[in-house]
């Protein structure tokens, strides 16, 4: 159960005294036995099942998001090589990013089975929109993503004829105009199964 209050807090503002029934949620931190706000936004009090109260300070606008491990991201493929493909992360969870982050999907992370038979150019093409999961923060350059789940992979792709393709199997899509078939690692889009985390 969530309860939004009308109280606006700003960073550094003391919310209340910390006791064992209080959990510091997002947008708050504890110091010297008190709970403080770390954001400018509305205070939310959430009742958790074990009777504890979770404090969160939420903003109305998108929160500042960076890709975190296990988060679902939407990305546009920018570059495909035999060993990996590069992509630009467009959104994290439900939050649309203002600026993209670089990510990469390695050959071994494309699908869960028959990993050694993966051919990158039969899975992704530049311009495709994919849904993927962050598996590591990677190096200084890019995040490492994975599509090795049924629900993950290409969701939107454009055919060589220039129209949006329709998925016909887990590894093929068809162009409605030219009826040509192209290979992709297709995502089985079932929104009810996708658990957005990190939002």
């Amino acid at each position, binding site marked *: 159960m969530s309860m939004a209050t009308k109280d606006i807090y700003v960073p550094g503002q003391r919310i209340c005294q910390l006791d064992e029934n209080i959990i510091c949620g997002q947008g708050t931190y504890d110091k010297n036995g008190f709970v403080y706000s770390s954001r400018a936004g509305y205070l939310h009090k959430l009742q958790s099942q074990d009777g504890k109260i979770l404090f969160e300070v939420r903003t109305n606008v998108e929160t500042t998001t960076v890709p975190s491990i296990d988060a679902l991201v*939407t990305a*546009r493929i920018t570059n495909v090589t035999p060993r990996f493909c590069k992509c630009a992360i467009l959104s994290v969870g439900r939050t*649309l990013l203002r600026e993209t982050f670089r990510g990469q999907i390695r050959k071994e992370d494309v699908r869960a089975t028959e990993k050694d038979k993966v051919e990158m150019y039969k899975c992704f093409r530049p311009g495709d*929109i994919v849904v993927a999961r962050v598996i590591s923060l990677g190096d200084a350059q890019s995040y490492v993503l994975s599509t090795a789940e049924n629900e993950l992979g290409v969701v939107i792709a454009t055919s060589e004829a220039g129209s949006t393709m329709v998925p016909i199997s887990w590894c093929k899509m068809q162009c409605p105009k030219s009826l040509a078939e192209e290979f992709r690692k297709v995502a089985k889009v079932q929104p009810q199964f996708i658990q957005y985390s990190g939002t």
Partner: protein
Amino acid sequence: MADDFKAARPLEYYRKFLEKDVRPDGRELGEFRPTILNIGCISTAEGSALVKLGNTTVMCGIKAELATPKTEEPSNGYLVPNVELSPLCSPMFRPGPPGEQAQVLSHFVNEVLDRSGCIRKEDLCIQTEKLVWVLYCDILCLDYDGNVADACILSLLAALKSTRLPAVKYNEETEKPETDSAKLEPLHILSNPVSSTFAIFDDRLMFVDPTVKEESLTTGTVTIVTNDNDLCIVQKPGGSPLTADQINTCFERAFSRSKEVLRLIDETLHSIER
């Protein structure tokens, strides 16, 4: 979901709106964003103006200094316009020397000043061969939401109109200038250049005053600078071809825009004087 669609397929998202001749922000195709003008907001500058075109915000400050003229033009002053697209105004820009776009804009503004003849460089002369005015017209973009060119020209014209120079005399005996800061004089503005920018989308649809989102999707732009009742500059750097009819519509809109803008400047100037 609309947000996701917008991010993933911006072109398709746009076409859906343009099919019905409206834009995602609710404007009609020929509609400029609300224009707000504030003149004389910076007192450390000799002239200044702040322009808001929707979210796009541009500030022009004019600093006047004294210098010796060039030997080849002994009775001409200097006009030095520069546009700065600082990293503050948009995530597209990074700190450092001006990028390509800023350079193009600076040259565009310079061209407008030159061609329109709104200020005669001879008027900036104090003593031939010895002393002339330099007008540094620095235009700073504070919020880049598209169509900065139009905002730059508007802020420049308004700032020039608000510029007051102190009376300076050249003392021939001491060969030094003498300034009387109590006497302030306005500049002679001979004409009123106004710029209007049109964006071409999908090779045929034209709309005015594109936002930054729209700019990134367009297939070409046309910028028309009018000078009172004359045409001053027409710029169409590549992009989709246009028919003569389309160009004519642009001209008509540019002239009507010019009237709107000049009325706005006059009203703002009047309100300060009062």
